[in-house]
């Protein structure tokens, strides 16, 4: 018998199980510890235990150490997790624009040698505008590679549109945006995303307000939204409920939970 996704989740059944067979991919996660939160299970094994419980097939993660400390060491830790858990863990390479001399070298090292699949940027954390020259060097390199970039932010929708137009072979994933809904913000992104098909929004955020995902689906379409958790910054078991219990169709849930990320990856092959 096939269960509805919400019912399976309410009963605590793994979404990957036979009863539901949903391919769930967490597009936004981290590895390790973060100074201002309690992340007792931020190692790969701690993450995988909760992934198995929920039925998350793959988690795409970047390193907290790479974001807040030694980016090279952090990227290597992610590579180690990718090597040990192939298929379950995919890695983002964090590029710190404040070490400008190392940008191209670190991208090559991570994507060509360490087995990471995409780039993660955090302009807010690193104190550099997403429109700064250092970041344009990242975009240029990823354009050649037809790569994927997840960023905490690419700035306002207008900046994102310029980037998406200027680097059309890059897939831009704007983090956190499709979480809390306001009509003005959603309308701005809807206009940009209707013109630029290389933009996706992820929805991880600790706060989950009533009806927000439903309104984002109405605004930009379920095929442009990606399930992400920010785990272990947030609980993946909490964030999955944003989708499983939303008042949207089963088809839309499956697209958001994993189908869209699969399409992004296939498009790069």
């Amino acid at each position, binding site marked *: 018998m096939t269960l509805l996704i919400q019912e399976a989740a309410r009963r*605590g059944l793994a979404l990957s199980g036979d009863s539901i067979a949903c391919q769930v991919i967490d597009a936004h996660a981290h590895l390790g510890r973060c100074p*201002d*939160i*309690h992340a*007792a299970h931020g190692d790969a094994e701690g993450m995988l235990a909760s992934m198995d419980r929920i039925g998350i097939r793959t988690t795409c993660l970047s390193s907290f150490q790479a974001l807040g400390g030694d980016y090279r060491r952090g990227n290597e830790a992610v590579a180690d997790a990718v090597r040990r858990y*192939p298929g379950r863990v995919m890695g983002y390479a964090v590029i710190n624009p404040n070490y400008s001399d190392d940008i191209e070298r670190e991208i090559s090292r991570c994507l060509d040698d360490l087995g990471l699949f995409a780039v993660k940027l955090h302009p807010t954390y690193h104190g550099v505008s997403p429109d700064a020259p250092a970041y344009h060097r990242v975009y240029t390199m990823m354009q050649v590679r037809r790569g994927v970039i997840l960023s905490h932010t690419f700035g306002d929708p207008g900046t994102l549109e310029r980037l998406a137009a200027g680097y059309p072979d890059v897939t831009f994933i704007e983090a956190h945006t499709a979480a809390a809904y306001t009509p003005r913000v959603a309308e701005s992104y809807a206009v940009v995303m209707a013109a630029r098909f290389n933009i996706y929004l992820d929805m991880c955020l600790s706060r*989950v307000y009533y009806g927000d995902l439903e309104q984002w689906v109405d605004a930009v379409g379920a095929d442009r939204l990606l399930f992400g958790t920010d785990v272990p910054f947030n609980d993946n078991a*909490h964030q999955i409920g944003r989708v499983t219990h939303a008042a949207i169709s089963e088809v839309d849930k499956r697209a958001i939970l994993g189908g869209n990320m699969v399409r992004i990856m296939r498009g790069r092959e």
Partner: protein
Amino acid sequence: MTEPFLSDKAAGAYAPMQKKVETQSSSTEWYDAECRLGVAKLHKPGAPSTAEALMTELASNGIARALVYHADAVGYDPAVGNRRLLDEIADNPALEPCWVLLPHHTGEFPPPDIVVAQMLAKGVRAARVFPRTFRFAFRLWNLGELLSALAAHQIPLWVDFGHDGWSEESIDYEGLHEVCGTFPALPVVLVRPNIGSDRRVYALMAQHPNLHVETSYYTVHRGIELLCEMFGPERVLFGTGLPHRAAGPAVTALAYSLIDDAARALVAGGNLARLLDLAGTSRSVSV
């Protein structure tokens, strides 16, 4: 490139490593410890504000019952909101009333012994305070008499510092330390601790067995599991934050928590029922 998550082989190569847990039994009754009724200043389209709509929303999330306070009791006047609450849930035994209280010094609210007598007479078995919203201190010099009256009857107290998002710094941890230590018979429920709270909440939980936490905004990775391991599942109460928040994440956070079925049942509703029973029998409901 490789296609790790497109291939069944990749998943098959992985040996599951999770702790053995059971999915929830069908007998688990979900009882929402964090729910509001009525029209509020902030409203999301479609969100329930009547008792009937709230029950429908709860049921759609598999939740049988809820402890509710009234939006007017926090957004306007506790006395008005508390009266409206009893009127609006009068025919609904699945909704349990929680009164919002104020200190009595200004004369806006009756003296504590009168308030508690009114609560018990009307079958109100839970209280809630909003120290930030109503601008009083969650300290003994401001609330001591009221807390003493509640403690005498073991009426559990929900403490809401009005925080949302990353504003959990507004939680008065010093006040919680003082109150919980002074009134060990008073069950205290801290509403909406979050990812930034643990280093202080754990210390408080370790020192004060009467402190409980509510889960609607508790998004710590595997956090419910950790709280249950450290302090016992009896100290954790499931809540949704409806209608401001979506219920789904709170439900899945508990449903997928790596705890056993007995612990899950306590968090889902057993603990709330137990705390309310401390304060007396349920109100009589005309149906």
